[in-house]
């Protein structure tokens, strides 16, 4: 298996591994420093291939880029205290959602992101957010945000090619993992099997920010199957997100912050 993975470095550097295989290969890199070094050298080689077809762009490009930059806020750096020491986003990344920055953001008061002229790659997230809103308002309805669902191609593609994944384990509850990919602003949440709840109660997934548990964003009602297993979901995270957790909440009305002590918490630091 590892031998097979080792052969993927060329295809990966050339951007020609399909998403699912890119994810596996990226996981493999954690345990194979020689593969990672080979990939790095191949990426430099690929960059030379790309540089060799340079062409003078139209002058209008410079103007429109500078105009757009003047209206576009920047992402804060990842910090050790929030997201752990992570590697650079693999370049192929980056279509993750942009968060309005909280008042405690390291870079100070960044405004909400002004939509870019052609935000085509953000639309899936916008639609997804709308779907979340609808489902949450609907109460009780289960929410499935399957990892790499076709509705989130950009996050899936980002996760597939990211090299900065960290697998994290809970400090409250047991079992399950969170695979944090800061460069994609995403965390893939694999919850353990959850016991059945009385009628009227649901499990709700949260992304916590800062140290106050009340400062949490709902990532939706957990889709618990009849056998207790839970579909993996992708939650949006950002610098400043400190944990992912699950609590028991009333099915209706839906909680906007956790109202009970979380039964499962995974800190987002390594």
């Amino acid at each position, binding site marked *: 298996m590892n031998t097979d993975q080792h*052969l*993927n*470095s*060329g*295809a990966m550097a*050339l*951007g*020609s*591994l*399909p998403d699912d295989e890119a994810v596996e290969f990226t996981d493999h890199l954690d345990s194979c420093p020689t593969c990672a070094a080979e990939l*790095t*050298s*191949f*990426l*430099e*080689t*690929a*960059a*030379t*291939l*790309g*540089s*060799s*077809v*340079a*062409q*003078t*762009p*139209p002058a209008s*490009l*410079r103007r*429109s*880029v*500078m105009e*757009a*930059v*003047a209206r*576009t806020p*920047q*992402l*804060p*750096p*990842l910090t050790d205290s929030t997201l752990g020491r992570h*590697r*650079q*986003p693999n*370049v*192929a*990344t*980056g279509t993750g959602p942009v968060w309005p920055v909280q008042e405690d953001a390291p870079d100070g008061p960044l405004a909400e992101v002004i939509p*870019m*002229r*052609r935000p*085509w*790659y953000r639309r899936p997230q916008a639609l997804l957010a709308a779907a979340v809103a609808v489902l949450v308002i609907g109460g009780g309805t289960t929410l499935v945000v399957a990892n790499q669902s076709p509705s989130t191609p*950009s996050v899936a*593609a980002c996760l597939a*090619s990211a*090299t900065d994944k960290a697998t994290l384990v809970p400090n409250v509850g047991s079992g399950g993992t969170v695979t944090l990919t800061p*460069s994609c602003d995403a965390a893939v949440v694999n919850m353990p099997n959850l016991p059945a709840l009385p009628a009227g109660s649901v499990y709700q997934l949260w992304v916590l920010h800062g140290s106050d548990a009340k400062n949490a964003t709902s990532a939706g009602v957990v889709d618990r199957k009849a056998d207790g297993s839970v579909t993996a979901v992708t939650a949006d995270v950002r610098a400043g997100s400190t944990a992912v957790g699950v609590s028991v909440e009333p099915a209706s009305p839906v909680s906007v912050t956790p109202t009970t002590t979380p039964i499962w918490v995974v800190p987002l630091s390594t």
Partner: protein
Amino acid sequence: MSANTPQLRSLSAVPSLPSDRDPDVAAAAVPEDLLRRIALGDEKAFETLYDLFAGRVFGLARRIVRNPSQAEEVAQEVFLEIWRRASRFDPARGSATSWVMTLTHARSVDRVRSAQASSDRELKVAYASHEIEIDTVVDAVESAFERKAVQKCLGALTDLQRESITLAYYSGYTYREVAELLTTPLPTIKTRLRDGMIRLRDCLGVQA
């Protein structure tokens, strides 16, 4: 005050040339340094980086997406993403050039694939036109050296290595699509992509 006069004169003599830019920026035309400054919100550093990479970003996008106005759109997305994500660049993971070009490649391929999804493009038609495209895109002005070296080193590969790498990188195909186009088993294509890249890397003298 008189000590300052010559400097003031020299600055006003060349108001719009690059030498008039922030001397720190001008001195730091190393892409890694530029990215570090861009992460601090330095728009002048960003302009310098733009001038350094515009030809490469646009050229690669053009090569992959073909359509010039779409290539322009992709290039704009890439530069905005560089601006937004500069703080996430980690020099320990590779060069700034590699970061920028990999980002450019990924965004270009995204564009091609989303176009494919909507138009259900026939791979073999694209392949038929591929050989012609290789020689028509020769407008490069910035990278004569790289172009020569790449041509020489691609020429030193076996046919299968060269075709596989070219289809994967410049046409944005997955290795599975490449295998289909070249009617070659999947493991063979994977292997040729890797050993071809090893030969290219060594030929181009790229340091890891």
